[in-house]
């Protein structure tokens, strides 16, 4: 590219430049503090319209008052001064969207922050959008395989569902989300992980783990870290879902994780209080329910006539001392299609993932399970519930009847089998094999402390020797009598070798 070429190109651009003088509405900054600006003027500005400041920062209009406008500044507010001229842009806040965003880490405005260069695109999606209507939707009937036995068997998630992950701090909420993303390899799913108010070090660990697992080939990370303003934390989830909608509009399935919405609610509370909106319960503004309901309603499964595709949402909420009845947790529980409840007690007892199966539910249920999984997990939830009730009597072991003792033993083995290490998602076929062995009693004579070893060996052995069963489950999602016979024979052979 010669100097002349660049000069000629510039001259051409300048010639094509047209500037017509026109009247523009402007405002002036009267107050700026803590990421909020009060502006006078701009008499015909619309709610949620973008405004631009002289230093290039942008803001979003949230309060339209009689004498002034309340604007949240999406950037560094220290460069904005009283008296600065503010222009309306006549646009609602939009974020750039592109296929090239896959594998990248973006900020809440959709700009890359991973140092791998700019993303060129001319497409954008508004961050606020009305959720798809009833007619455009389709029932949830396809599974999202998390690779976690406790979830896929007992609290199955479907494509287009909203399943809440809720629990106290350090109970494995993010671990479940990351394992789910890792298990989407080869599942034709695009993943969006929205990090709200998290430490940068934690996000870096997550990014590294996803890169090591090859998950960044189909994942986008949107981040509003804890050092960023509340305004960016407020819009980050909407940015994430706008990017997800771009892929859903192409007929693709998308999984989006909001980690976590408790911090999102706190950021919104901060903005609302600074804008002098009346505080309600726990000082949250009156529309905090709407904050999350309009976000989560955008997750759906669309029918083929309207383009197909789906967005499955896994919002995360952090509770305090296991209090499910607090304001924000109850709000989000009432919005979502089920919850996965993680307990600190279970975590410290060594039951990880620390899923409380009794309090967890999936309102989509077995519609989202393949037939094979439905068959093996059918009675498992009931067995576990009965086991928990009988556990209190286990100290009186010698005084119990035979069937109660058997139930207790089966329950202990089920709890042991459902334990799973982090970053080790299990394929559906392997889960079916293990659950089949458990529910048909093949593990009843295996010592509880040897269950994990038995399980590991069983999977390796059946993968090599039960090819008919595996092929049937992978292709038709259900086994035939021939497949089952082969599996029973193989399990028997393995048990004999294990006993030796």
């Amino acid at each position, binding site marked *: 590219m010669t100097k002349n070429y660049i000069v000629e190109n510039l001259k051409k*651009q300048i010639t094509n430049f047209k*500037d017509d003088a*026109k009247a*523009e509405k402007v405002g002036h900054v009267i107050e700026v503090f803590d990421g909020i600006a009060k502006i006078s*003027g701009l008499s015909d500005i619309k709610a949620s319209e973008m405004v631009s400041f002289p230093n290039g920062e942008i803001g979003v209009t949230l309060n339209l008052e009689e*004498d002034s406008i309340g604007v949240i500044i999406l950037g560094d507010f220290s460069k904005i001064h009283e008296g600065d001229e503010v222009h309306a842009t006549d646009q609602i806040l939009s974020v750039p969207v592109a296929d090239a965003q896959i594998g990248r880490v973006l900020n809440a405005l959709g700009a890359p922050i991973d140092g791998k260069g700019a993303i060129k695109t001319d497409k954008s999606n508004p961050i606020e959008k009305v959720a798809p209507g009833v007619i455009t939707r389709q029932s949830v009937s396809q599974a999202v395989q998390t690779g976690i036995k406790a979830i896929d068997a007992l609290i199955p998630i479907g494509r287009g569902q909203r399943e809440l992950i809720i629990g106290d701090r350090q109970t494995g909420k993010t671990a479940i989300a990351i394992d789910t993303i890792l298990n989407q390899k080869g599942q034709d799913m695009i993943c969006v992980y929205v990090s709200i108010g998290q430490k940068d070090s934690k996000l870096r660990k997550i990014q590294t783990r996803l890169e090591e697992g090859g998950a960044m080939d189909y994942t986008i990370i949107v981040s509003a870290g804890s050092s960023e303003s509340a305004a960016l934390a407020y819009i980050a989830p909407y940015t994430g879902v706008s990017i997800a909608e771009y892929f859903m509009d192409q007929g693709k399935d998308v999984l989006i994780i909001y980690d976590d919405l408790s911090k999102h609610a706190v950021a919104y509370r901060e903005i609302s209080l600074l804008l002098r909106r009346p505080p309600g319960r726990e000082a949250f503004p009156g529309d905090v329910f709407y904050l999350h309901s309009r976000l989560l309603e955008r997750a759906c499964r669309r029918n083929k006539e309207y383009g197909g595709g789906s967005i499955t949402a896994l919002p995360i909420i952090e509770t305090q001392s296991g209090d499910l009845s607090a304001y924000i947790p109850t709000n989000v529980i009432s919005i979502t299609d089920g919850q996965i409840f993680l307990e600190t007690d279970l975590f410290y007892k060594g039951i990880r993932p620390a899923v409380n199966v009794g309090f967890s539910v999936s309102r989509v249920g077995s519609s989202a399970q393949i037939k094979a999984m439905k068959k093996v997990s059918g009675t498992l939830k009931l067995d576990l519930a009965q086991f928990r009730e009988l556990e209190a009597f286990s100290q009186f072991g010698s005084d119990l009847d035979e069937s109660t003792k058997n139930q207790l033993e089966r329950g202990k083995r089920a709890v042991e089998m459902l334990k799973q290490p982090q970053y080790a998602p299990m394929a559906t076929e392997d889960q079916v094999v293990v659950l089949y062995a458990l529910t048909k009693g093949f593990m009843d004579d295996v010592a509880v402390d040897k269950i994990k070893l038995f399980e590991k060996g069983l999977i390796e052995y059946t993968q090599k020797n039960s090819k008919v069963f595996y092929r049937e489950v992978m292709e038709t999602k259900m086994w035939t009598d021939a497949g089952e016979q082969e599996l029973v024979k193989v399990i028997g052979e393995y048990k004999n070798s294990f006993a030796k």
Partner: protein
Amino acid sequence: MATISVNNIASAIYESSQGKDGAELDIVMKKAVNLISKKHLMSKSKEILNQLERIIDKKDGVVRAKISSRIKIDKKITDEIEDFIKKRYQVKHTVLEFTVDEKLLGGMRIEIGDEIIDMTTRNKIKKLQNYLITN
């Protein structure tokens, strides 16, 4: 209880002073100042006066404009600007304030309320810069 805005107070002063003069007007003004003091709005007295001016201008059909240019504008152009403003805002009276600002580089800038028409060279260069960056 709803907060009293600057606009409320300015409108109240205007409405109460309609058709009054002399001693009656003095009483109205005194009461207005007492109210502003009672509501701890003395710090906003400048905004109240500006808003009152806007209300009076609107009622009297007056438009105020600030025109900034790099060099002093001659009478022919100032008359053209006045005619343009009267036609655009459908008013009979205008109050024009002219200022000279060398930083504009050229052209002129007209500010009327919260509307501006910026035909300065500085603004054109800025728009050209944004155009070249995005294209």
